[in-house]
């Protein structure tokens, strides 16, 4: 089923891949695209019933030595803190009372609350910084971060649209000026064709493989195809209007479509890639946040993100299994 292709042969590869998967397999929109140009057909979209992978709470004892053995950058002379230059560059604090930046999609009263990140599962959420700015994400394996597609790829240009891999820094459990679990770099970037070639918000998700195994220490989230409508929802990540702090907003999933979920949890720029999750004897991700309100109908009424469909589940599982 696997096809090797560079960008210039993308159309041919898509046609061939589409011909080798079931007709109902999303017309290739959820075929996986990696930053090396590899395209692979999504598999198993015919699955019925709920699919779930379990979370893992990580290590009971966290030491710099343990993190270092997982390949995490902790001995960088910073003493576990962002430098003043890093903090200023990444936090981009707006002037209090002088801006509306980042507040446009608070729906009614701002319900967000700050989370402190020393314990699981908060420490399994990550701050993602890269050449264009910053996003949020969540550990789903020892070396795998799930996030929005637009946090790793511009949404056009196929394999040429990935942001520079070398610019990525992933901070598990960042907490203001503190980075208690160091940071990791990106080994590879992954999204799906529906995002990479069409910026289709219905397929806006992806993953980052890390050059470390920090998940063994901080733990990771499970994810599930459980029917999301009516489920409790927590959207938790690193909003751009807060200085590198982790915040969350709790509500419930109000609506769903085939590929998206809709909710009134408050979000701002920088929250893209945050898990939409609920607690069922552990944290299970049921969506990946991506968008504020816009347009018409349900999109105008609710913030929204990618639903964990069967195809999405299989892709996340595949990325998690990569070395």
């Amino acid at each position, binding site marked *: 089923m696997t096809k090797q292709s560079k960008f210039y042969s993308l159309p041919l590869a898509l046609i061939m891949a589409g011909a080798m998967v079931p007709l109902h397999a999303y017309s290739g929109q959820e075929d996986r695209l990696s930053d090396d140009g590899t395209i692979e057909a999504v598999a198993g979209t015919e699955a019925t019933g709920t699919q779930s992978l379990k979370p893992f709470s990580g290590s009971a004892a966290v030491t710099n030595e343990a993190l270092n053995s997982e390949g995490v950058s902790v001995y960088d002379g910073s003493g576990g803190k962002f430098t003043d230059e890093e903090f200023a560059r990444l936090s981009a604090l707006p*002037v209090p009372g002088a801006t509306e*930046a980042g507040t446009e999609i608070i729906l009614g009263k701002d319900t967000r609350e700050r989370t402190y990140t020393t314990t699981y599962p908060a420490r399994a959420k990550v701050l993602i910084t890269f050449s264009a700015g910053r996003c949020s994400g969540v550990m789903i394996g020892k070396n795998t971060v799930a996030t929005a597609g637009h946090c790793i790829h511009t949404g056009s240009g196929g394999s040429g649209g990935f942001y520079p891999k070398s610019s990525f820094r992933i901070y598990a459990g960042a907490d203001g000026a503190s980075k208690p679990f160091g940071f990791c770099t990106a080994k590879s970037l992954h999204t799906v064709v529906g995002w990479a070639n069409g910026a289709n918000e219905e397929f806006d998700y992806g993953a980052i493989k890390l050059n470390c195994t920090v998940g063994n220490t901080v733990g990771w989230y499970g994810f599930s195809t459980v029917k999301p409508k009516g489920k409790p929802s927590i959207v938790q990540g690193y909003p751009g209007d807060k200085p590198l702090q982790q915040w969350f907003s709790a509500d419930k999933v109000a609506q769903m479509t085939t590929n998206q979920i809709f909710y009134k949890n408050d979000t701002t720029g920088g929250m*893209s890639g945050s898990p939409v999750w609920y607690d069922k004897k552990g944290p299970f991700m049921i969506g990946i946040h991506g968008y504020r309100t816009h347009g018409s109908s349900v999109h105008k009424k609710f913030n929204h993100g990618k639903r964990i469909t069967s195809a999405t589940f299989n892709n996340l599982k595949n990325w998690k299994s990569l070395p």
Partner: protein
Amino acid sequence: MLLARCLVYCLLVPGLMSVGCAQEGLEITVSNDVKNSEETMPGITQGLTGLVETGDGRPVTGAMIVPVPLGDDTPAIPEIAILTDAAGRYNWPLPPGTYEVSVSAEGYRTAKRRVEVGADKLVTLNVMLSSIHKE
């Protein structure tokens, strides 16, 4: 690859349009001039690009660029936090539409400007921020 991308830019953006404005705390130029295309990130052929500086020409690092779509049928805008780099530059891949763009950074007055992004157009939006601290 770079040459090919530049050729694409030239084909897609044959014209040149500039709009300048100045108001309190804000000086913006808007154009679809692609003379700086070699400095943009790979893959961005549509949206906003530009430079954020202080009044004396120093780049503003870490300024957050927030485009808010205007009108009824507004496109989906990702909730990514786009920040200026160490040189004060940013790139925002955006779908076609009309936006009110806010530029904010610690210690500076927030600037806002209305910008229209056309299909396959890379619009340059340069912004000058003024300090909240009067000299």
